[in-house]
């Protein structure tokens, strides 16, 4: 095997830049591993480290600042056999912090090499997430007010199973790099180096100074025992292969005749937790069993078990255009919040609209035909009122028939909830009180 360095595009770093040595070490490491260029992808982002991909005869992907780990993740999931090496600076580390945490937690087999030189070299030496507070950099006093990030501790606590910190001048860097690349899981190398073009102008950092600073930090020597686990890609593929194939969408043919001709519009007004949307879906499915077209438009809030929940269902023998309902055939008023949301709907109703009004729910004055139902008195709990309402419609042969509903329940529900819903259909009754 020979060098993968691109002789036509030699490294173009400032004289004395740590990046230059690290690029050559990386090449040495590839050579020691016997890798061909097409077995490797170098992923880089913005800053001086972002030039790395151009220096090698490998696959290359250069993208936006701090996002290298995201591109690498997609690439590695798609091409598990590829050695994916990510080059980022301390700048990319800061802006891409969430991505670093994500890859540490996930443990996909990527190698992240952080070219840590404590400042933004390319843009004028501004402070980064690793700049010491006492350093003189291009951001005035700002860095003196912030603490530098120890990326090794962050990575280890986020779940990275291989974390190593070294000086860019370290004699054994190629061996350590090889260990990191060979590691079957996510590996991070925090490599400290001198930036002669910017940082060094006002800060006299020496290789000895770097060694002394490293010695004062908690060690990061590679394997993090408590984080050892199966590599994500392998775990994903194994788990995915056990997933059951998703069923194709159920085809429903016409089994019954609808009890009423033409277009019927049903509005169910209630509250979250009353299974309004599920009842709407079952109503649609019942329509399909009679060969009708169906639409269901829902309205609810971002809260989960609180707030209004309304469903508007249209069943029609003709194509359905507009999915809103202005002149409903039926309203089920099951919750005050839902009714409140659609008060105006009641204003222009005529006798032909049929309203099922649950006891305890107030509705505005209306000319529609109102029938009150005491669900509570029938021992039906609030979460079943919507289902009970469409069951009543079926029993009254309004919009749907009992056969249509029974068939829809069998399509949509299973086991206990199916049995319970069929039993509900059997026992729910209009009260005689109104």
């Amino acid at each position, binding site marked *: 095997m020979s060098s993968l360095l691109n002789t036509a595009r030699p490294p173009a770093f400032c004289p004395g830049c740590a990046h230059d040595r690290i690029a050559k070490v990386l090449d040495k490491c590839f050579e020691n591993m016997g890798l061909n260029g097409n077995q490797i*992808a170098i992923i880089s982002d913005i800053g001086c480290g972002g030039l790395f991909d151009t220096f090698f005869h490998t*696959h*290359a992907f*250069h993208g936006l600042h701090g996002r290298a780990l995201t591109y690498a993740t997609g690439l590695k999931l798609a*091409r598990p056999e590829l050695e994916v090496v990510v080059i980022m600076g301390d700048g990319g580390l800061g802006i891409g912090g969430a991505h670093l945490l994500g890859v540490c937690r996930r443990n996909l087999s990527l190698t992240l090499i952080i070219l840590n030189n404590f400042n933004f070299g390319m843009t004028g030496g501004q402070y980064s997430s690793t700049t010491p507070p006492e350093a003189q950099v291009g951001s005035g006093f700002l860095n003196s007010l912030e603490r530098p990030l120890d990326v090794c501790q962050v990575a280890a606590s986020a779940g990275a199973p291989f974390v190593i910190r070294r000086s860019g001048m370290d004699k054994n860097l190629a061996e350590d790099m090889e260990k990191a690349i060979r590691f079957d899981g996510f590996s991070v190398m925090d490599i400290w180096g001198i930036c002669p073009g910017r940082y060094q102008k006002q800060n006299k950092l020496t290789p000895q100074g770097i060694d002394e600073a490293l010695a004062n930090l908690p060690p990061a020597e590679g394997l993090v025992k408590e984080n050892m686990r199966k590599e994500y890609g392998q775990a*994903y593929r194994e788990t*995915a292969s056990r997933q059951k194939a998703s069923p194709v969408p159920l085809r429903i043919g016409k089994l019954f005749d609808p009890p009423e001709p033409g277009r019927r519009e049903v509005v169910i007004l209630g509250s979250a937790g009353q299974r309004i949307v599920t009842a709407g879906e079952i109503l649609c499915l019942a329509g399909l069993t009679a060969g009708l077209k169906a639409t269901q438009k829902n*309205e609810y809030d*971002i809260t989960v078990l609180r707030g209004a929940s309304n469903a508007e269902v249209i069943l029609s023998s003709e194509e359905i255009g507009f999915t809103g309902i202005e002149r409903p055939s039926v309203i089920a008023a099951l919750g005050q919040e839902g009714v409140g949301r659609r008060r105006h709907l009641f204003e222009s109703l005529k006798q032909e609209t049929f309203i099922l009004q649950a006891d305890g729910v107030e509705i505005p004055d209306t000319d529609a035909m109102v029938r009150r139902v005491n669900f509570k008195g029938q021992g039906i709990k609030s979460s079943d009122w919507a289902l009970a309402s469409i069951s009543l419609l079926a029993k009254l042969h309004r919009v749907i028939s009992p056969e249509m509903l029974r068939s829809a329940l069998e399509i949509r529900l299973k086991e206990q909830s199916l049995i319970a819903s069929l039993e509900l259909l059997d026992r729910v009754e209009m009260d005689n009180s109104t």
Partner: protein
Amino acid sequence: MTQCLLEGNEAIARGAVYSGCRFFAGYPITPATSISNTMLQLLPPLGGICIQGEDEIASIGYCLGASMAGMKVMTATSGPGMSLYSENVSFAIGSEIPIVIVDVQRLGPSTGSATRGADGDIQFMQWGNSGGLPVIVLAPVDVKDCFVLTMHAFNLAEEYRCPVFVASNKEIGLTRESIDLDTVERPAIYTRAAPQEGKSFLPFGTPPGRMVPDFLPIGGETLVRQTSSTHGPNGYITVDPDEIGGIRQRLKDKLISNVDQYSYYEEYRKEAADTLLITYGVTARAARDLFHNQGADSRPFSLLVLKTLWPVPESLIQEKARAVKRVVMVEMNLGQYVREVERTLPDKDIEFFGQMNGKLITPGQIRKVIDHV
């Protein structure tokens, strides 16, 4: 005949899988989440990959990586996520990375109303990126469109190597509808072109007579370079103004000059109508109802439903508006696409109606605008 009951989001996911999409990454957001949920059911059993990113930036980043590895990829979000996609959308435009991006629009600005619909991102999808080059935006009307336009979106992303947006809306994505899946006409599925055997390959080199580079995946035999920096055909940074200018012009021309090939629309003509109603998205459903119920006493109109919004299908709009004096544009925002219609039809009387209150525009509201003289 049989029917299925699907919501728009599920139809998009199924359209994607039918198109060969095997990689999806997204971040939970109402009203787009059920696309992700459906992909998670569909893809792993097929050997595909569906993951949840740590944020939207990561999600689209994963997709770009996987697309460059040769997979057909999709992500889905709503307005706030679209904002976070921006930098990578620019990347996909400039570096010709095929991707389908679904925007299930919700009422904005900003976090706005998570569970209310709007078509407020129509200009944002085109211009919410750096550099100002064209993208493709397709707008579904109903569940069937969600299914079929998603297939077109993949075909276009593959053919033109660019991001293609599906401009859905909460009122389409989360609305359930009956659909006869077995009779839906599906387009032939297209996959990005590889170079001919024995031909030399440059990652951004266009073969003679073509405007789109051939594609080889990162990770294959041949070394492939991808870069967000201004590059020449070889994928290395270029400083040559002619090369830079030429590639930018090509990125524009490859979409603009071919828009007639992919101008999807529906047209409903009324004899002797002096008005053309133009709309798109869920509002087209109200418009179609109104068209079919034109009374003898109301002003007759024809209807054009645009399903390709960007690049603007200018010649289509001009041709369909030729016979009328007056154009009424209705959209679920306070006036976005009407700008394009005005620009495209400078000699017509253009009237606009828009609404952004979380409610659908009704047939009656459109009627009033059309009858207004």
